[in-house]
């Protein structure tokens, strides 16, 4: 079984004991991390990381690709001090805390230890070693099983005496370093800076002020206990008088209802604040980007419209073609038609048509020698007259009738040919009208294609969809609050009314006199506690606001742009532009993060804990010139307090390198071994 090597008497070889000035700040002692030892902890098999302070800046930098254990440096500190790993990546969550290579090297059923030791320098020659060790039994093919964890604190005073502490005593030393309830303001992911003033700002600040004020102690220890006493006294009074008991029961029921509504309001307000923040975040992301979802909807609509227009154009084109077929036939035969009409007109002028006498009838009369009308025989004179008549009628009546029948349709065809140009133009105009609509649609479709070209349409659509979802959530919260606020007011009125009734009833009941005096005392004490809590919150809020403003103006790279930073009574923060308007919503990511950093440092200051600040990916969300400016700010912060920064290589850009390289006391590069199971911190 491998044992974690210990460093019971201070820090091992190579440690440079630098005399730090034990600056007192609001009663706090400057504390810094001097060394971190990682044993079988996740990617780190055996790693000793020093944080010597050799320059004016107590700045320490880690650069590592994702998966090399960069964020697990942050987790290791949390695990050592508080026993948890709040920043585990998804990949790490799938893996055991015990190093994979250590597992492989251990025989089935064997034991291994995971350990993290954190050496903190607390003053001249004074050190604290925090040491957490967890034992695991290794089973081939299965996750190691946890056997137990020990946590020890070795505190070495200025005289060199070391005390070994564990349990609550050990925890009290953690509280002197960075108390668990406020650790989130000391060890955090850079994303926190980015989101801090975008989401649930008032809640975040109220929460921070509450934590930093350590008023939770007052609330838990005093307020709740006093409330319990008041309730038990009222119950005691209720046992004496059924009327008191009845009112008390109703009062408590109403109080319960009121508390439920108040809790619901708090949750809904938090939801609303988160939703509002996320809407702002998506609006910022989408600002300047095309409204892909809207454009996509427009594209779909246009395509549907185009199909309709194409069908309509097709129909008009079909009608035009039919017109060309019908009229074209007449036009092509136009010369024949005109010639035939001319012949008809000529025959008409000669009186040949319409036919007056039936030629076949005359021919038959001559052939038979009998008149076909009266039946009389034709004499020579009559026959000569019929012959003369036949010679005059050159057309057969059949032809003449045919010509008469033809005339009207032929004249119609001529008329059609005369109007052909106009009719063709009308048919073409109908087709063109739809063609123009189609061309307009095509132009807009091409515009849309150009607008979205080069953008990740899927991503932008997803952002639009998510923004819409949050808008829906926000709208719902507002509807809920619109109902909940008056509900709470009514519940409060009922509580006050019943409370008055209970007081009156208790005053009437002589046997409850003693109970009432005790109860009234407790209620008065409770009021004092609540008022004290509020006063403290207000005072601390004001101090944090003032300190945030000082730090922001001290650190900002844009002097003269801003006029004030206010933490309002409703715990909302506002950044006032020199032109007088509130501008937090419109400042750059860098400026917003600078404000969040100033606020965080103000919290450090007010909390009285002058402990290190550790930020994972501090500038990931800042781009361009603001990145270098923010890098310079972090360098300046490190002049005052130990600053540990964890970067990805992409984040550790040229600008950041320029701003930080000369200021950093230590710089480490985290590298994963070829087997991808062990990481090493190499000095840069």
């Amino acid at each position, binding site marked *: 079984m491998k044992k974690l090597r210990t460093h019971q008497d201070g820090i091992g070889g190579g440690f440079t004991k630098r005399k730090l000035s034990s600056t007192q700040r609001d009663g706090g002692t400057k504390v810094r991390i001097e060394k971190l030892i990682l044993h079988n902890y996740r990617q780190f098999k055996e790693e000793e990381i020093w944080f010597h302070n050799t320059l004016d800046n107590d700045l320490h930098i880690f650069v590592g690709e994702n998966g090399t254990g960069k964020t697990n440096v942050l987790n290791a500190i949390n695990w050592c001090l508080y026993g948890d790993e709040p920043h585990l990546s998804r990949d790490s969550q799938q893996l055991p805390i015990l190093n994979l290579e250590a597992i492989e090297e251990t025989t089935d059923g064997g034991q291994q230890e995971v350990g993290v030791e954190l050496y903190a320098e607390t003053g001249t020659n004074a050190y604290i070693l925090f040491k957490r060790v967890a034992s695991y039994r290794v089973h081939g093919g299965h996750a190691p099983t946890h056997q137990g964890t020990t946590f020890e604190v070795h505190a070495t005073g200025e005289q060199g005496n070391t005390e070994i502490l564990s349990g609550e005593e050990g925890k009290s030393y953690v509280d002197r370093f960075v108390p668990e309830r406020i650790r989130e303001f000391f060890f955090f992911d850079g994303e926190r800076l980015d989101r801090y003033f975008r989401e649930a700002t008032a809640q975040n600040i109220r929460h921070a002020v509450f934590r930093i004020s350590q008023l939770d102690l007052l609330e838990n220890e005093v307020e709740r206990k006093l409330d319990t006493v008041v309730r038990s006294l009222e119950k005691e009074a209720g046992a004496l008088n059924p009327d008191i008991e009845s009112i008390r029961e109703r009062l408590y029921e109403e109080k319960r209802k009121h508390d439920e509504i108040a809790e619901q309001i708090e949750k809904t307000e938090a939801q609303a604040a988160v939703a509002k923040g996320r809407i702002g975040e998506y609006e910022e992301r989408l600002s300047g980007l095309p409204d892909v979802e809207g454009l996509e909807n427009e594209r779909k609509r246009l395509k549907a419209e185009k199909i309709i227009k194409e069908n309509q154009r097709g129909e008009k084109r*079909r009608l*035009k*073609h*039919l017109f*060309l*077929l*019908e009229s*074209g*036939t*007449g*036009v*092509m*035969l*136009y*010369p*024949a*038609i*005109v*010639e*035939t009409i001319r*012949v008809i007109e000529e*025959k008409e002028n000669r009186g040949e048509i319409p036919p007056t006498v039936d030629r076949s009838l005359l021919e038959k009369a001559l052939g038979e020698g009998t008149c076909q009308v009266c039946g009389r025989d034709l004499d020579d004179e009559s026959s000569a007259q019929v012959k003369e008549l036949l010679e005059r009628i050159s*057309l*057969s009546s*059949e*032809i003449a009738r*045919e*010509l008469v*029948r*033809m005339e*009207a*349709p*032929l004249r*119609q*065809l001529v008329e059609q*040919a*005369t109007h*052909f*140009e106009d009719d*063709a133009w009308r048919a073409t105009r109908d087709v063109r009208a739809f063609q123009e609509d189609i061309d307009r649609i095509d132009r807009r479709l091409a515009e849309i294609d150009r607008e979205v070209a080069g953008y990740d349409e899927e991503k932008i659509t997803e952002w639009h969809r998510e923004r819409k979802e949050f808008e829906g959530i926000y709208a719902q919260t507002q509807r809920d609050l619109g109902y909940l606020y008056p509900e709470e007011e009514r519940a409060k009125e009922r509580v006050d009314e019943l409370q008055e009734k209970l007081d009156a009833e208790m005053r009437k009941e002589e046997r409850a006199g003693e109970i009432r005096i005790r109860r009234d005392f407790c209620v008065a004490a409770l009021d004092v506690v609540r008022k004290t809590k509020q006063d403290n919150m207000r005072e601390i809020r004001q101090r944090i606001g003032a300190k945030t403003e000082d730090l922001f103006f001290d650190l900002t790279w844009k002097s003269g742009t801003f006029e004030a930073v206010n933490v309002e009574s409703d715990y909302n923060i506002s950044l006032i532009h020199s032109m007088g308007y509130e501008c937090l919503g419109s400042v750059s990511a860098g400026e917003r993060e600078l404000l969040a950093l100033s606020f965080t440092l103000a919290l450090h200051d007010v909390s009285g804990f002058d402990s290190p600040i550790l930020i994972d990916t501090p500038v990931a969300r800042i781009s361009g010139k603001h990145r270098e400016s923010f890098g310079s700010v972090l360098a300046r912060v490190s002049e005052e307090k130990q600053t540990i920064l964890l970067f990805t290589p992409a984040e550790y850009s040229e600008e950041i390198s320029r701003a930080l390289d000369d200021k950093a006391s230590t710089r480490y590069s985290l590298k994963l071994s070829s087997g991808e199971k062990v990481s090493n911190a190499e000095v840069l």
Partner: protein
Amino acid sequence: MAKIPDRLNIDKKTDRELYDKIKEEVFLEMPRKGQFLFAMAFGFMYGTKRELGTKDGFFLAKDMGPRDEALINALAVAETGSVAVLSNRARVYQIAEEYAHAGIRLLHDEVTSEEHGSFYKRFERDIFERLEGHM
């Protein structure tokens, strides 16, 4: 007395295929009578007619209206230079069939030619030009 034909014919060997080939692009849903008259007019426009080989009935004469009759009559009058032809329906139909026989081949060649623009665009342009020449 010659028997009056009850139908108008196309050339059995070639024409039906040509009509079918260009039906979709040119004739759309036009009935056979209309297709025949168009082909006939097309042949007349280009001054070309051809004698039919084996005849194949294309549509019945009774289906023709006054306008259709007037067109083929006018063609026959113009072709013969005499109205006397009108008393001979067989001859009138024969003239119409010969022009339609030549016309459908010309039309097919025109439709399938690789000249710029669709058949209808070219046809519309031609028609305008011809009308201008006549009026």
